[in-house]
């Protein structure tokens, strides 16, 4: 598998670390309550099809990426920087 890092270009999967669903970008308020935090930490849509995941270009530029991908075909649709604080 290869991902097109917006900074480094297309790279082999072995350069990247995978964290999980991009839902983790939406960190709840500290007082949002146990249901919101349970949802954030544990529950996942886990679709068979298009999904948004968090990857870290660990052995490359170090950027955190949001990768839009198809979990059935492994087609990679988009690779974007996860944060605004990256330029």
């Amino acid at each position: 598998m290869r991902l097109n890092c917006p900074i480094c270009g297309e790279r082999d999967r072995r350069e990247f670390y995978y964290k999980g669903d991009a839902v983790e970008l939406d960190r709840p308020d500290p007082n949002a309550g146990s249901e919101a935090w349970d949802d954030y930490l544990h529950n996942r849509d886990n679709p068979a099809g298009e999904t948004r995941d968090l990857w870290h270009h660990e052995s490359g530029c170090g950027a955190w990426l949001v990768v839009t991908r198809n979990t059935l075909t492994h087609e990679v649709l988009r690779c974007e920087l996860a944060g605004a604080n990256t330029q």
Partner: protein
Amino acid sequence: MGYSALKIIKEGLFGQRGWKPVWRDPEPKSEYDVIVIGGGGHGLSTAYYLAKEHGITNVAVLEKGYIGGGNVGRNTTIVRANYMLPGNSEFYSHSLKLWENMEQDLNYNTMMSQRGVMMLCHSDGQRDMFARRGNAMVNQGDDAELLTPEQVRAEAPMIDFDNVRFPIYGGLMHRRGGTARHDAVAWGYARGADQRGVDIIQNCEVTGIDIEGGVVKGVQTTRGAIRTKKVAIVVAGRSSLVGAMAGLRLPIESHVLQAFVSEGLKPLMPGVISFGMGHFYISQSDKGGLVFGGDIDFYKSYAARGNLPMKEHVMEAAMTLMPSIAKAKVLRSWGGVMDMSPDGSPIIDKTDTQGLFLNCGWCYGGFKAVPGSGFSYAHLIATGTHHAPAARFLMNRFRSGAVLMDEEGTGSQHNLH
């Protein structure tokens, strides 16, 4: 029809004409007492124990493809009860006992072979952790021995003790662990369930779960609607998708785990050897193939196929641990889809919908759980109460933080277990 050596001789003499279907292919009825969604190892064993232990025989197992086509048919066939944490310990202990009587119980040779599972440790700290695990196993009534490096060497002389990147400080030996013939487990349970009246319905995909007023009424399938008061979901790899039919958003991510088998070789592996630092484990099948695997591919996927970096990592681990297998040739690799849960342990629980039950989250350890999972799930479905050995596999543990069973200690990130 009982299986025996005598029967084999008789059939051999008379052209094998007397063998009957191992399970029937019935048309789905309009209503069942229990519908089990998923004809994998866990689903089939659930149906078997519903019939055998609870006398509930008006049961359908609905399978979208062919039975045993999921993870029970694509794994590294390892059976063990070497867990450390309360909750897991008692469950796998119970499951192993069922394994030990499975062949006689099912009248089907699933080739359960207790040749031992040996985990290697690579530091003083790891050895102490193994001691803790081994003690937990013995406290639970199972077997464990902490081996010295010399004892490991005697058990597994093919290990390169002098050059391996992470030296061998010893091992945790679990002699009652071993391997079994994976497909046969599915077929054996199918046969046992079928003989007790369970309808195993292949090529029947569930497309919807009918719920009215918080109560299960039936399922929609590609072969029509079926009524029931109890629906038991047990569809590892697709739990989130089937769960979503009932409005559930589960603490599950689907990940690919690869496994490998080599060409047939004359016997060289004593039992199962697991190399923790390399995420590598290996055994040898009765046909002579080296069966081995490593970690998951780490990204969520339903594609049931892996990618090259993990294959290379697994083979590199093999090369540092036992370079004497360099010339074994990999014949086939495959990938299964794993339900990865946030603490690496499973869920066997009721849901908020009356009559809807859930069994999922086995990560990459579901094979050894097949008998125990079916037994405990059947108990829950039949009695409405949790079977004691599985009483901690509750869904709300993540929300409360109570009795998490995080054997790896890696926390709530699904792919790290």
